[in-house]
């Protein structure tokens, strides 16, 4: 069982009290516990079971404008005594930084709304095994599938965040995650693909059979890929890749990248950075949302934030430290976004495919080719050639490249947004990018 609020609160207040006694003028502490149980199957047989019980504590102490932090997985008082003493000692020896401080008291969350993030259901390993059997049966029904691996994880977490301004709050969350990875083979090639479902509530999880079948279908259609020539061509990003482009955007508007001057979007607030119709929102209060929360990791209340409206950048993602540096108030985005998404576009998925006589539909990218300093983008890619709205044949061993500054101005979105992850995008088309192949 995951530890209760009372246990976590007791540890938190012990730490705050001790830090004060040892000379800290302010301090904050997060105590968390996370219990996960995973069962893995491979080729319709049990492959692995894994239970993890993780405790963690992290403490930040301030002496005036000096700051230092420690973290540990060992919550015994003996150990905490040594660590907090070390933390306060290090704080004394760390140079001052005028922007170091706890959040402004009036920005802290006053109430904790129930966002429906915790499902008390306990799924026994035998139930996990039943789910995975169904999944693997569906995933391996086609004889082109030569290997299946699937996984079911139940996670229950609890945390308390407390600071010397009197803030003390936390709540339980849960997640149930199933995934299927399949390998297909024909005479010419071997390919791998996957599908995945993650929900706060067990009853909302995708049907096991559907999940397995989806993974298998996506893998089989990748067989016998071709390599195409190098050209400028419209790129359509599958939703699971399009969300990555949205995440890169979020990194580029984080207050740390902005205050350090290391983002291609610095000084772009109130300027048009996306094509006309694009809206980007970060909405923390979606019930059962995978990224939902009441406050950020500093305790600052997190409200819905319009980041982009009709293509115009409206807000950065601001935490306390970088906010003070930029002379802006924290908007509760320490640690990033909550439920971040592009609003739907006007075209159906089909109309988007049909909008060009020839395009590339990308289902997977590999490599770390995002540079938020320059905006340059270059990654390896796998996908399909689309002609007149039809998937013609699979493609691999190509790269796609461009610069986000241009790419953002040439985005067209479909109207098929769904909330599968914490960051979500409808299917996305970007014109003007370069494919390198043969």
């Amino acid at each position, binding site marked *: 069982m995951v530890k209760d609020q009372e246990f976590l609160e007791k540890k938190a207040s012990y730490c705050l009290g001790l830090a004060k006694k040892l000379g800290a003028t302010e301090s904050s502490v997060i105590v968390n516990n996370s219990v996960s149980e995973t069962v893995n199957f491979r080729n319709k047989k049990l492959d*692995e079971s894994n239970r993890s019980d993780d405790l963690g504590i992290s403490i930040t102490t301030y002496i005036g404008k000096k700051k230092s932090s420690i973290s540990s997985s060992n919550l015994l008082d003996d150990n905490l005594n040594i660590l907090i003493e070390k933390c306060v000692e290090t704080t004394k020896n*760390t140079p001052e930084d005028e922007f170091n401080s706890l959040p402004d008291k009036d920005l802290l969350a006053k109430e904790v709304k129930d966002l429906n993030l915790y499902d008390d259901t306990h799924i026994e390993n035998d139930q996990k095994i039943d789910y995975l059997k169904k999944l693997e049966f569906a995933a391996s029904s086609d004889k082109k599938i030569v290997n299946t691996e699937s996984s079911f994880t139940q996670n229950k977490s609890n945390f308390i965040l407390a600071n010397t301004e009197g803030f003390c709050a936390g709540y339980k969350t849960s997640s149930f995650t199933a995934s299927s990875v399949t390998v297909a083979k024909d005479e010419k090639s071997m390919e791998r693909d996957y599908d995945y479902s993650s929900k706060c509530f067990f009853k909302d999880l995708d049907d096991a059979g559907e999940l397995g079948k989806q993974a298998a279908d996506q893998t089989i259609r990748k067989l016998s890929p071709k390599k195409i020539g*190098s050209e400028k061509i419209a790129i359509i990003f599958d939703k699971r890749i399009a969300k990555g482009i949205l995440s890169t955007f979020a990194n580029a508007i984080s207050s740390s990248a902005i205050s350090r001057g290391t983002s291609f979007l610095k000084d772009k607030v109130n300027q048009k950075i996306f094509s006309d119709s694009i809206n980007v929102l970060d909405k923390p209060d979606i019930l059962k949302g995978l990224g939902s929360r009441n406050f950020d990791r500093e305790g600052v209340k997190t409200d819905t934030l319009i980041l982009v409206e009709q293509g115009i950048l409206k807000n950065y993602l601001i935490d306390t430290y970088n906010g003070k540096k930029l002379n802006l108030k924290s908007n509760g985005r320490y640690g990033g976004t909550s439920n971040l998404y592009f609003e739907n576009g006007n075209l159906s998925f089909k109309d988007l495919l049909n909008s060009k006589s020839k395009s590339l539909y990308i289902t997977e990218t590999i490599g770390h080719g995002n540079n938020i300093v*320059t905006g340059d983008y270059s990654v390896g890619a796998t996908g399909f050639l689309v002609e007149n709205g039809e998937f013609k044949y699979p493609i691999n061993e*190509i790269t796609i490249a461009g610069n986000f500054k241009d790419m953002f101005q040439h985005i067209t979105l479909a109207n098929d947004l769904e909330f599968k992850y914490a960051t979500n995008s409808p299917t996305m088309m970007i014109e003007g990018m370069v494919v390198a192949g043969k």
Partner: protein
Amino acid sequence: MNNFFEKSDISRSEAENIVSDTLSKCDDGELYLENTKSETLLLDDNKIKNSSYNSDLGFGFRAISDEIVAYSHSNEISKNSLRQSSENLKSTLKSVKGTYNHEIPKSNKKYYDNINPIEQKSLNEKIKILNEVNNYLRSKDNNIKQVTANFLGEQKSVEIIRSGGESLTDVRPLIRFNVSVMLEKNGRKESGVYGVGGRQSYDFYLKDENWKSVCDEALRIASVNLESKPAPAGEMKVVLGPGWPAILIHEAVGHGLEGDFNRKKTSAFHNLMGQKVASEGVTIVDDGTIDNRRGSLTIDDEGTPTEKTVLIENGILKNFMQDRLNARLMKTRSTGSGRRENYRHIVLPRMRNTMMLSGNQTQDEMIKAVDKGIFAVSFGGGQVDITSGKFVFNCTEAYEIVNGKIGSPIKGATLIGDGPSSLKEVSMVGNDMMMDPGIGTCGKAGQGVPVGVAQPSILINKMTVGGTKL
């Protein structure tokens, strides 16, 4: 050495009994105990931004029967917690039986000293160097707009308790020092990153103010990039410099030669043992036994002493990298490649220091042999799809080659190739093998472990360069 039972309500012999009892009907398994102390010191934007210290303690209990792995981990080294883990393992493996495999090779060799690098240099000394780095760089070039420098130090103590009370221990130091700079000139921004590290004290790497050479290198890369023009797009010849560009080897063949993917037949290499997978003259080894290197280990995370494993010899595929589980199922022996990020994770076969050995040619000969292509010197990272064999790596410093001569610098681009065929396209192997500077972390199944790479300069006849210039 760490005494994991000192502050616990369970004695060593009680723990040993639980281990022996739990594993008695299993094929393999162990109790893995770990205590890691680590620190981060970060200078950024002219200030010490972060001084933090982490202490992480926990155990992972593993039982294996045939192909099935049961694992349970916790932070609390207590009677209750260990018993609960034991029950979890037993319930997973209730219907299977095995014979415990006792055999584990022994060695007295050690590849690093039992030190705690964090305690070997005071906080004030480290802060002083970071400030000197900042001042040195900012006084060197007026175009510098940002400097980030950090120290990462760690000491990891592990103990492996096997059935019957057999105990194996290791204490692993690890440090890293990184510098990153951003330049701005005429409205254009570019960055450069460089770092050094290994299983040693900070002083070993930073004596005689040689942190300056790390700064100089980061600044040099950023300056080159400031003058870079768009990279070409399409297939062409590629010359790779020595050292860190060996990420190519790591991605193109390294992952595909890990035992688990080959036992499961999901690697593009699984049916190529004994066959030609690289050009003649290409020899690749994975070596855990080089003193003080980032990827070196005295014993792996199952207790097996590490070794130098020949993967490809003169173009022929010779060995996969194995942990105990995959070795047993493939009827071979562990190569000491069983690794885990920490006690939260199961063991997987992983790389250590992956190296292509020197040949006879010079870098000059390679450049001269290229009419149109690129010369890539520095890389950011890479990734591979082991099933299709396609891999990428991202260059952060590269130049065009025109008619046998090095031309202008080009913008960072991703290079993509096919693992099983790309090493057959290696047409020249240089005589200048070099180790990387000691900064690599390899990710697999959500676990990051420190690794090293090395190679001489090489000429690859055909690779796709992911630029924007058609």
